[in-house]
């Protein structure tokens, strides 16, 4: 049984919480304790842009955010509320930085900001009901505009990006929403589907999508299975994290081992056990 429970004893007993951070590993799993935005920013660094010739915006996954932000409920709230409101940039108010802010207050405000600011978008990736991709809105906008440059559907796409994206922060759109609220006609919606910005979900509703994301999803699914297979084939079905990252990536893993490891840990497809030699990844017995 884990003795670490005792650090959670509430403050009435006057026990100090033991700090979670141990020596910094070369792959800082819990490097960001609290801010989902910082986690997303760090994860998009791991995304291999060159693989897709920079045509895809860097996509992070929700499960990867869970591996960096230990409290899932807090991470969810931050991500969800970060989509909607208008963007408030910390840089515009440099004076506020001088004020000492407690980390918790900062992250709470940041979280709601993230999706409510419209700073990120959450995309349904399609291969799993729970798998959501997280993209910075700016990146998404630039890539989509670049992709539809000079094509026949450029006008419809620009109208979509200008009117629908800032207004509606959901993952999907309904027929009546598109026609009445935003004034799209059916041919325009067909053009949007052709452009890859919308994906048909069922009659009269569409998912928000990233043009060209099919390749990413294919590499991702194959890579996830490959990395899981590496852990499965190890003796006793467990591997030290440092050893896994030090191994040569098999050919199926195109997105990078670190990217997949974050996803596996956050999706709880492997158990993370901390040992004296570092973090150990073990396949769950169930």
């Amino acid at each position, binding site marked *: 049984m884990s003795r670490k429970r005792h650090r959670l004893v509430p403050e*009435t007993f*006057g026990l100090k919480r033991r700090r979670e951070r141990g020596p910094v590993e070369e792959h800082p799993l819990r490097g960001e304790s609290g801010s989902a935005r910082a986690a997303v920013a760090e994860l998009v660094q791991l995304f291999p842009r060159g693989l897709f010739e920079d045509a895809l915006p860097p996509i992070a996954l929700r499960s990867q955010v869970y591996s960096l932000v230990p409290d899932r409920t807090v991470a969810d*709230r931050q991500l969800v509320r970060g989509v909607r409101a208008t963007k408030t940039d910390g840089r515009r108010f440099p004076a506020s930085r001088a004020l000492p802010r407690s980390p918790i207050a900062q992250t709470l405000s940041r979280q709601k900001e993230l999706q409510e600011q419209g700073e990120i978008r959450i995309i349904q990736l399609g291969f799993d009901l729970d798998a959501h991709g997280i993209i910075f809105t700016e990146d998404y906008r630039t890539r989509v505009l670049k992709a539809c440059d000079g094509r026949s559907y450029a006008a419809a796409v620009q109208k979509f990006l200008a009117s629908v994206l800032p207004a509606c922060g959901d993952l999907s759109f309904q027929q009546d929403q598109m026609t009445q609220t935003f004034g799209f006609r059916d041919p325009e919606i067909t053009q949007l589907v052709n452009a890859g910005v919308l994906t048909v979900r069922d009659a009269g509703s569409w998912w928000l999508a990233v043009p060209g994301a099919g390749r990413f999803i294919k590499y991702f699914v194959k890579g996830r299975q490959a990395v899981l297979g590496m852990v499965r084939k190890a003796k006793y079905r467990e591997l030290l994290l440092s050893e896994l990252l030090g191994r040569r990536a098999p050919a199926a893993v195109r997105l990078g081992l670190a990217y997949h490891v974050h996803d596996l840990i956050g999706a*709880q497809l492997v158990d993370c056990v901390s040992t004296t030699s570092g973090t150990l990844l073990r396949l769950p017995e169930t």
Partner: protein
Amino acid sequence: MLGLLSARQAGLDDPLRFRRAESTRRVLGLELNKDRDVERIHGSGVNTLDIEPVEGRYMLSGGSDGVIVLYDLENSSRQPYYTCKAVCSVSRNHPDVHKYSVETVQWYPHDTGMFTSSSFDKTLKVWDTNTLQTADVFNFEETVYSHHMSPVATKHCLVAVGTRGPKVQLCDLKSGSCSHILQVVFAGHRQEILAVSWSPRYEYILATASADSRVKLWDVRKASGCLITLDQHNGKKSQAAESANTAHNGKVNGLCFTSDGLHLLTVGTDDRMRLWNSSNGENTLVNYGKVYNDSRKGLKFTVSCGCSSEFVFVPYGSTIAVYTIHSGEQLTMLKGHYKSVDCCVFQSNFQELYSGSRDCNILAWVPSLCEPVPDEEETTNKSQLNPAFEDAWSSSDEEG
């Protein structure tokens, strides 16, 4: 703790605060204890456990072979080492024993003179504890998965029964005799009902969970239909169309109200546990992570009672996972069983957890206390010499 004691003594703190703080501390220290045992009677998996709400002293267990055992949990011996003995049992050679597996047992909420048990042999039996005879039997057309009687009801004696059919049936104990079943039949679910639970706050509110992924809240006085169907997306159609208006993306296995009745916890075969606001059916979106669940019938989990932040104890494979309810944090996994755990109950007077599993064992998880400091006065040795060998010389040094 001394600070809390003196604060209570001086009147600075509410006594309840000290009690809740100490209860929380004890629950955080739950572990297997070599001094506490539950006598092993069952020859096959233990499906259900229930501790009587009046004193918290007697525990019922129901097994896959139809055997029902009654244990006395109180430690009346002066020794720290104690085995909870079985007081009596309905064994295989009892004339009224269930033919197949007992799925749910429950004490009558107001006293220990009666208990109810339901089983895969399509019956619900009402037993008299003192004579261990069945007082009443209700027969159904389908196998019974779960039943529950309201713990706070004073105006009715209804037992809600969930069967393999899509309708929830209510049996009235007051008017029941062998052939007369009062059936108030609710339509609304489409597949088998895996779990039912009355609200501990309102005596007419009932929650039912079904294999069609829906959880419905009913007021039994209202004949027309359910009050609320729980929706995991809170009405937002932006999520997948297949999961519209469902509580989980798979079968909903288990239901538990929190002890104040304000929230409802549900577990499903999509490996998720969700916390709902029971007054408006809103998903509070607390994320517990993966709560592994492959049980094909109901999963019986329990919540703590009387702690400052309540905990939920969920069977997770062959371990029991402990989460804080409102923050979603996983505190620990209690390992001890050899096979999958089916049920657990919490004894709130002593903050003990009892769990039953398919390996026929019932384990008691007891708050780990510090070792008592050995008392120095008791270590003086008495002389072991036979009086015949004792010398009669005085030990005084004086001459003469």
